[in-house]
């Protein structure tokens, strides 16, 4: 079953054309990793999927529904698309628990008790059950990101978007976040991850998309993309990453 259908996606910021026509289908349960040099448009691509960026042209459908900023039901459509940000974006004025329960209570009309139960289960899953009453400022980067993942999962989304979720972390905290994501992938979550973690992409992805210059320059299974890159641009990119 197709979860996300993207056709002719273009996005410009003023005169600057970031995405120049992207076509892409994502199957339910598929884990797609998006790689590419910085400025290639991979984050913009991801942000168009839940309409944080409104496409200049082209269409994006999630479960057959067109994602449009001005659509009446855009809030409901976004409920099904969880997102995890590079900078975590936890709500600093709310406790860890409230960060997770706010959306289910406001959107799904869940009772506080019910939402709390869900939140505690999720916190246990990401290994932070003891941090429920902590404020975000007291958490490490890796802990913040795991709370952010739990917050997104609390809406029971059918699709999760990850925008460089480990890029702002100290190296020793990358593993704990990737472990949670790996577990999520194994449970069958449909995931699109913009990432610089080539090891993660190689291991977890069903498909790797290489975005360069605002288009999908190459895509395939991890073994195809990493083992047998066809285009010179991808070869150069992989070499540059390997040297770093």
């Amino acid at each position, binding site marked *: 079953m197709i979860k996300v259908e993207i056709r002719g996606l273009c996005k410009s910021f003023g005169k600057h054309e970031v995405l120049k026509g992207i076509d892409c289908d994502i199957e339910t349960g598929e884990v797609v990793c998006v790689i590419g040099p910085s400025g290639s448009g991979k984050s913009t691509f991801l942000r168009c999927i839940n309409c944080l960026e409104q496409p200049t042209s082209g269409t994006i459908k999630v479960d057959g529904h067109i994602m449009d900023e001005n659509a009446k039901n855009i809030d409901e459509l976004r409920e099904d698309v969880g997102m995890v940000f590079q900078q975590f974006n936890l709500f600093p004025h709310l406790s860890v628990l409230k960060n997770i329960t706010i959306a289910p209570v*406001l959107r799904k009309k869940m009772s506080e008790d019910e939402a709390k139960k869900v939140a505690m289960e999720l916190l246990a899953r990401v290994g932070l059950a003891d941090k429920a009453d902590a404020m975000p400022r007291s958490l490490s980067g890796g802990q913040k990101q795991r709370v952010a993942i739990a917050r997104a999962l609390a809406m029971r989304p059918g699709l999760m978007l990850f925008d460089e979720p480990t890029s702002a972390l100290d190296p020793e905290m990358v593993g704990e976040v990737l472990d949670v994501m790996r577990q999520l992938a194994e449970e069958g979550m449909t995931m699109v991850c913009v990432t610089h973690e080539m090891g993660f992409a190689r291991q977890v992805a069903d498909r790797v998309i290489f975005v360069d210059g605002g288009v999908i320059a190459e895509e395939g299974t991890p073994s195809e993309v990493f083992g047998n890159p066809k285009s010179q641009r991808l070869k150069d990119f992989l070499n540059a990453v390997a040297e770093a």
Partner: protein
Amino acid sequence: MSFFELLIQSLPLLMQGLALTLELAAVSLLIAMVIGIAASLMGMSKNPILRAINRAFVAIIRGTPLLVQGFFIYFGITGILGIRMTAFTAGVIALSLNAGGYMSEIFRGGIQAVDPGQTEAARSLGLSKRQTTWRIVIPQAIRICIPSVVNQWCITIKDTSIISVLGFAELTKIGQQIIARTFRSFEVWIMVGVLYFIVIYLLTVLARIVERKVSLD
């Protein structure tokens, strides 16, 4: 007459003046907060006419002295419209418009200082624009605004002394009247100054406690 005799003799009158000062400041600041919120919302509106009105309002308030604003309202407006108002009413209008103009910029700055990532995270969870504004952005903007708002309160409390020239007996005016009778300029201005200082000092101490209570750092 010794300093203490003068103090004991003057204090009841000075306290009356202080009460009027505080009343004028409190009423004006209350209205100024409402004006400030409304004006800042206009300033951030999508409607270009509302934005232009806000910009003109702030420019006029910032570009003219409070004293001129007070005279204009008390003598200019009443004259041209043929209406009467008390000096106190004119003072309240002038002070609340004046402080409201500055507050509108404080509130706008506070809301715009909230990380756009907060809005993105809230919207990505499905929260509506309204829910995002009231549950996520405003609570953080208030914390950012507190120091500047308290600063404006201090300024407005002291600005009541300027507006007293319209003719009502707040603290500074009472001080002048006592001096006119006693010729003890040095001592009386110290008393007046200390009274302002105490009020403002207490306010800032209170503000700092609140600030620490709600701090996110």
